[in-house]
């Protein structure tokens, strides 16, 4: 198949727009969305306290809007209008301000989303190594699993393990097509995902960085170097095979 046809599938909307919202008029029966009054906006106590703790970290409390949205998204599952209303109430901002902020960032969901996030990197380095195929496989594997949301994502900063994915924040790679199924199984079983491919356990590629007794995973192409003969001390790059 030619490279040209390997475009990732694009969500299309009936009206021809890719962007939900552009075609929406306001609901004239709603009142204007001003800063929510605490007297009429109930906020779960634990969420309120967590947001207030974030606000206290900054010289200007408004800096806490992104951390607060993270908290609200975790609490409500997504940045629902209600979640945003609650953050707005605690932070004394308008809900519109927070909607504006939330919609700017890829990690906030302004539509309901599945509980588990699988971000598959489809950026250049990973795609050179087959990320687009893996993305298709991942989508296929997750079919019928309503609580797993698969998203193509821009560079996640782990091209060394490409093709890779971030599964609920856990970076795993390099992935082959079979891993898609395993990821789904691990998620559904509540297990750590692809433990043998987690970035957290991985050794650095640079030979200088290696130490004896590192019990993690060796970088691609250097499995022998770690597992076989541990490198000790700095090695001149010239000597590296």
């Amino acid at each position, binding site marked *: 198949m030619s490279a040209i046809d390997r475009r990732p599938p694009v969500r299309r909307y009936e009206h021809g727009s890719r962007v939900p919202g*552009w075609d929406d008029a*306001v609901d*004239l029966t709603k009142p204007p969305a001003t800063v929510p009054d605490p*007297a009429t906006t109930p906020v779960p106590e634990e969420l309120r306290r967590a947001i207030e703790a974030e606000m206290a970290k900054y010289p200007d409390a408004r800096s806490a809007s992104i951390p607060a949205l993270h908290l609200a998204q975790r609490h409500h599952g997504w940045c629902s209008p209600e979640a*945003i209303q609650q953050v707005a109430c605690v932070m*004394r*901002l*308008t*809900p519109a301000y927070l*909607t504006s902020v939330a919609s700017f960032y890829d990690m906030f969901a302004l539509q309901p989303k599945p509980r588990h996030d699988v971000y598959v990197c489809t950026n250049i380095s990973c795609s050179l190594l087959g990320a687009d195929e893996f993305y298709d496989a991942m989508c296929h594997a997750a079919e019928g699993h309503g609580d797993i949301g698969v998203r193509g994502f821009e560079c996640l900063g782990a091209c060394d393990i490409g093709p890779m994915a971030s599964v609920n924040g856990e970076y795993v790679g390099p992935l082959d097509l079979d891993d898609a199924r395993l990821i789904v199984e691990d998620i559904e079983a509540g297990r750590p995902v692809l433990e043998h491919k987690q970035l957290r356990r991985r050794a650095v590629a640079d030979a200088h960085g290696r130490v004896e007794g590192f019990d993690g995973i060796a970088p691609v192409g250097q499995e022998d170097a770690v597992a076989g003969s541990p490198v000790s001390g700095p090695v001149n790059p010239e000597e590296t095979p």
Partner: protein
Amino acid sequence: MPRPEQKIIKLTIDGREVEAVEGSMLVDAAKAADVEIPYFCYEPKLGQPVGACRMCLVEIEGIPKLQTSCSTPVRDGMVVNTQAARVKDAQNSIVEFLLVNHPLDCPVCDKGGECPLQDITFGWGKGRSRVIEPKRHFVKPLALSPLIAIDRERCILCYRCVRFSQEIAEDWQLIFTERGSHTFVGTHDGHPYVAPFSGNIIELCPVGALTSQPYRFRARPWDIEGAGGICTLCPSQCNVEFTVRDDKVLRVLSRENPAVDDGWLCDKGRFAYQSIHVDERITTPLLRDESGELRPVPWDDALRAAGAIAEHRGRAAALVGGQATNEEAFLLGRIVREGLESRDIDSRLSPAVRPGDATVELDLARALAAPALQATVADLEFAHTVLVVGTEPLDDSPILDLRIRKGVRRHGVQLLIATERPSALDPNAAFSVRYAPRRGAAFLADLDGALAGGAASPEAAQLANLLRGGGEEVVILWGEALGAEALPALLSVADRLGLAGRAGAGLLEVPSGANGRGIREAGALPNAGPGYSEVTAGRSAAEIATAAAAGDVTALYLFQVDPVRELPGRGTWERALARAELVVAHAAVLTEGIAAHATVVFPAESHAEKEGTIVHPDGRVQRLRSAIKRPNHVRAGWQVLTDIARAVGVDLHVLTAGMAFRRLVEAVPFYEGLTLEAIGGRGVRWPETDAASALPAARTSPPTPPAPAAPLAAPSNGRLHAGVYRSIWASPEVDVSPSLQFTVAEQLVELSPQDAAALGIEHGAPVQVAQNGTRLSGRAAIRTGVPAGTLFLAAGIARDSANALTDDVVEVAKG
């Protein structure tokens, strides 16, 4: 913060040496030198430039990359080239980029013909595009609010509208959502963009993306003319430009005057022009016939019937509404005093001042009008400290709300607020204090005591500290609603802060009527003639009501005011009007009091029709000019008054509006030298003229403020202290403007969360408010910030108005 000094520097633009104010933006300096640099996003009124559209790129010697001239301050010796080939290339590129998605639907676009994008594409574009990729297509237009339609295909994301919402109105309702080329203008979760100043975004939009629902497709730019005028729907007296087609006002735009409005309008001023051309408008004289119906009659009949007021010599009284011009107030004053031999005329018509409340002594009025004590609107922006006391700018003089926000945001003004009701400005204030309803006088006395170093409440003491430490330039913005009793303390506070004669400091009153200040200066007061001259004192408005209800006053002349609708003591006024033998009214629409009781109704002119002068609260004399022909049989107010004067035996020597102005200037010493030409389109502040010293000084020093009264005892058993507020939308003009129907004020009973909980009342639930047999229905609005034990009721509205109340305490229950 004091105003920055301006230094002139020289720079070279396109080979020509030009002068400019140091630090001004290059694009402005170029414009002043007749070099036009195109731009979309730049708008100095909106604050710091954003540099988003990149249309204004120019070449500056010594800087390798092209620079945005909207964000580059000029420096001495700068050499700028706006005509270089790479500048042209950049301009061509930006235009081409903008048209990647902008539809070419100019023939059916409401903005066509007055569209910056259209103009700039013609002026600076290449004339052809290489884009053959499909453009975005969306449903259009969509409602953004009942007043504004949005067309997202046309939007070029210039940031102007969202910056207005976020940085000027600070309502933060209008936002960009999404990112990149998906970015679009919207609101949270489909809520409409409803805010008091929302209409300004229509005027700011440089394309046809935001259009006015009432104006859409009513005219093309070549069908219309612009006519300068003043909006007299509130004391802000914003300068406007009426868009006129075939003698009809189709639109109101801002006519920027930094000394008055800064180029903004509220939605009432922008959209209530519709009341000029509605069926409800009275356009012929009306006379009540034997069956009690008001019927249209010829002018002669109406004038004859009104002229019968001559028979009530000594028993006639007049009220002058805030929309009257100086001339009208002046002429009516002469009719009352000279023709009717009465002393009963008043124009202090505050919704918060009730029968039995004190009247303002002449000396106090003079002291408060003293030129040395007058602050200007611009002072609000540059003062060190602004104290807002006894007024809610958003409702009482909306455009000042924006000016105060600007001062706080841009110049670090310390804002202090002392009001009975929570203020929209509270979040911007360094300190806000609440006093009990109608206890403004007590609070100011308390504050005065604190400034004198005496014992005071903790709140007053803190406010006094902030005032004392808040810099020299202090402006006190105060509302007429404070009542006469509060004024000695106010003057004393001003005195203790040394505000008199200090540049950039002083007092600024928000009167209840749009031209409240001018009407008083023209002599429509019970205790002052034109120019605050001494007269034998007559009855105040509240006293007139009582006297008329008792039969002591038998004829009433109501000049553009319906006391039943607008004044407290509604019951007394109803009795007064019912008992009066003759009620002559000037009115534009039939409000309830006029409809029920007027004998004769003269059609009143709208602010787009009047000729005359008015005075801004800061002393700026401004000029109203006819933008349109008076409809149907409407006659000029001054003309009707001269006819009435003749009927009561006074020759006013007025044959034209200009003559009426000259008679006024002759009568008011401190207007001496004013001419209509000098007033022009910008106005003249009389306190700054040489004639200002002709204002009579107070004969005695102001009375000592009374000792602070004891705090109100907390009422119990579902009884609460009631304060009143008058919403920005509470006006007969709004009531009849079709596009503003969604704002028409209803009785919103503002309750504290504590009281609401105690009474089991939920937000939005119906409630009943009762007092002495009077019962009002309303909806509960639970509002954090309303002090427990207090509630606030809407006044000046058509139904269930708080004007009916006569006492400070009400009973509240679920309704």
